[in-house]
């Protein structure tokens, strides 16, 4: 009995020692030494640069698991089937993209890998990086990605074409974004007031989009102005100015105030333009 108990204890100890050495002694010595992402905007691809240090003497195969690499407009985070890219890759679907179905081979020393990121809305996203080998966690780290908000501005300009019977003002409007993130579905309202009578003569409401560090011309048709204001000296020209949908026709003495306001989430921006400007009166 005593002998049997001794043997059982020995077996259990042996299993524990071998199991422990297998679990802890066989794992690669790999650490995450650096993570950073250059600034990028919502709806743009970003890159998370990860430096992995292989402290062993031989190359090792590891797997990367990334959480919060892609998050949609509803805050849903997507899995990462195909994210690792080579240094010279320029797009998520380029040849440089590597499937996460394959392990990454880390040579001894520092190894640089890049992972695509993408977020549909601005905000802060904690991206968790886990380095795994054969189901065993080697190291993990979290990097807070800050996706900045768009910075919206409006600009109104006009060009005057003087004619014998009327002055025609071509109005150009631009939604300008100084921020990195794009802004979709920017609600934009136009109000035109005849300041002589104090009456609102035209209103319209449209949605526009603008990319990060970009501008969008507000207009219905490429190559055409946003609006036309015709000040007739006598009988109006009768020109429909198609395909321009915003056409205001007035008489000498009328002065129109164009007010345009854009809203996106909490941001509100506006611009105004007087037609004719005071110095243009004749």
């Amino acid at each position: 009995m005593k002998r049997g108990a001794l043997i059982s204890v020995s077996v259990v100890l042996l299993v524990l020692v071998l199991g422990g050495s297998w679990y802890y002694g066989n794992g690669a010595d790999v650490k995450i030494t650096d993570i950073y992402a250059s600034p990028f905007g919502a709806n743009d691809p970003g890159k998370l640069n990860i430096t992995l240090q292989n402290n062993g003497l031989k190359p090792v195969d590891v797997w990367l698991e990334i959480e919060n690499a892609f998050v949609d407009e509803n805050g849903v985070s997507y899995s990462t089937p195909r994210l690792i890219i080579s240094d010279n890759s320029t797009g998520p679907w380029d040849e440089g993209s590597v499937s996460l179905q394959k392990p990454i081979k880390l040579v001894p020393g520092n190894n640089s890998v890049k992972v695509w990121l993408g977020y549909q809305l601005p905000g802060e996203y904690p991206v968790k990086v886990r380095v795994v080998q054969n189901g065993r966690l080697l190291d993990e780290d979290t990097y807070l990605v800050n996706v900045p908000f768009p910075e919206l501005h409006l600009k109104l300009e006009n060009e005057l074409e003087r004619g014998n019977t009327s002055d025609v003002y071509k109005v150009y409007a631009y939604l300008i974004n100084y921020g990195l993130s794009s802004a979709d579905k920017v609600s934009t309202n136009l109000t035109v007031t005849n300041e002589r009578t104090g009456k609102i003569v035209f209103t319209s409401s449209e949605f526009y989009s603008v990319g990060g560090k970009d501008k969008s011309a507000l207009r219905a048709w490429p190559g055409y102005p946003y609006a036309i204001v015709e000040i007739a000296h006598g009988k109006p020209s009768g020109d429909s100015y198609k395909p321009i949908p915003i056409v205001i026709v007035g008489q000498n003495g009328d002065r129109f105030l164009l007010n345009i306001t854009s809203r996106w989430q909490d941001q509100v921006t506006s611009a105004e333009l007087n037609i004719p400007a005071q110095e243009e009166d004749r």
Partner: protein
Amino acid sequence: MKHMIERDELFSCKSAKLLILMFLLFGICAGCLDKDPVEARVNTLVQSLGDEDERVSSLSANELCAIGEPAVDPLIKALKDDNPQVRSLAAQNLGIIGDKKATNSLIKALKDPVSEVRMNAAFSLGQLQAVEAVEPLIELLKDENGEVIRYTVIALGMLKDPRATEPLCEVLKRDDASISYDGDSDMRYTGNSNIRSEAVFALGETGDPRAVDTLLDLLADKEVGRSAASSLGRIKGEYVFGKLIKLLDSKNPTTRTNAVAVYEYIQDPAAVPILVRMLNDQVPEVRIGAAYSLGHFNESEEIAQTEQPLINALGDSKVEVQAAAAGSLGRIESKKAIPLLAELIQSKDSTLCETAIYSLARYKDPEAADALIAALGNENWHIRMKIVYSLREVGDTRAVDPLISLLGDESSGVRKGAATALGSLGDRRAVEPLIKALETERESDVRISEVQALGILGGPEAINCLSRVSTDKDEYNYVRSSAEKALVILKGGGTVNPSSFY
């Protein structure tokens, strides 16, 4: 001896046996735990090929293709899976991965009871360029399923093996050979396809003279006659010449039309007089084909025979014949035709007008450039734009001043074309006008072209302007980034070209 006894005693001990058993079990467990993770994932993905959700099975197939070589053996094994969907997708993916190791297994899969598996196996063997599959594929042409036959025909076409010539000719006679199927995105065609059309194409791919008679007969066919002409063009050879030339006199207008089309691909000098005569054929399609084919004869002796008849064809009652003749005159660079082509630019028919423009652009000749420049006042902005792009092709710097004037054109398309052309022509006289145009230009597309042209032309004034644009917060993003790209190259002493911006 004493040691031996002791060892025997040890091995006879129950506890020692238990210990050894534990070692073995541990070894097996450790072995399982340390299983190759790629292999484990491949096996999971192979199983997912049979998923009822098409998105899952399709994504699994894509991932297996991305994994490549390590997935080949498991996919070969999957060709024997109980689930036909797994077998079918395995057969398909083995062709995409392209490892010839799969050839024998795919040949066996040609006898699979499920038609889709046979179909994909056949196609994959074609993709693998597996010549050893030619005979089994020929055997598969007797399959009861029309789609299997169509895919087999395509595969035989890919293999380009003359052994398939006679069986392919036979398959054309099948009752179901004309049934059309929707195009498949994985295939060459996106339009309709049937066994006949694929067989005609495949016969051309074999390059086998034994296919010539069948293909010549098919020139009378309204459905596949044009395709047969193309296949004959790929076979070429003296054998085609003698028989084809006789068909030019056929009473069947479809035969004549398609026979003429073969001369787009092969140039038999003996056919020139007949083709010239066919410019007067009563059927317009024959005249169009003759005019078009005559433009492909480019030896000086042949051109001497074709030039005047083609010029005469510019007066044909059908605009399509005139356009074909105009195109051919440009192709043979007929000097005599330049004033006539210039006149055609004023035509109200847009096809004829555009053909005349493209033909003049082919000349790379001052007289042709003059004709194009003179036509820049055309009231149709679309035509002005075509001329602008043609002038860019011609590369004559006399176009610089007229193009500068067009930077103020009412059409943004013309302005954009003019800016692009000015960049291509490389004349620095355009720098100042381009800078001035940028001050007032509102269209982003045009601004991009103006900035790119300035980058290509270079020089201190251009660099100053590009610097301003590159730092303008109110500028369009792509315009700004184009300026930045050009500046980096110019400041580094390099030369900017159109590809620098992509």
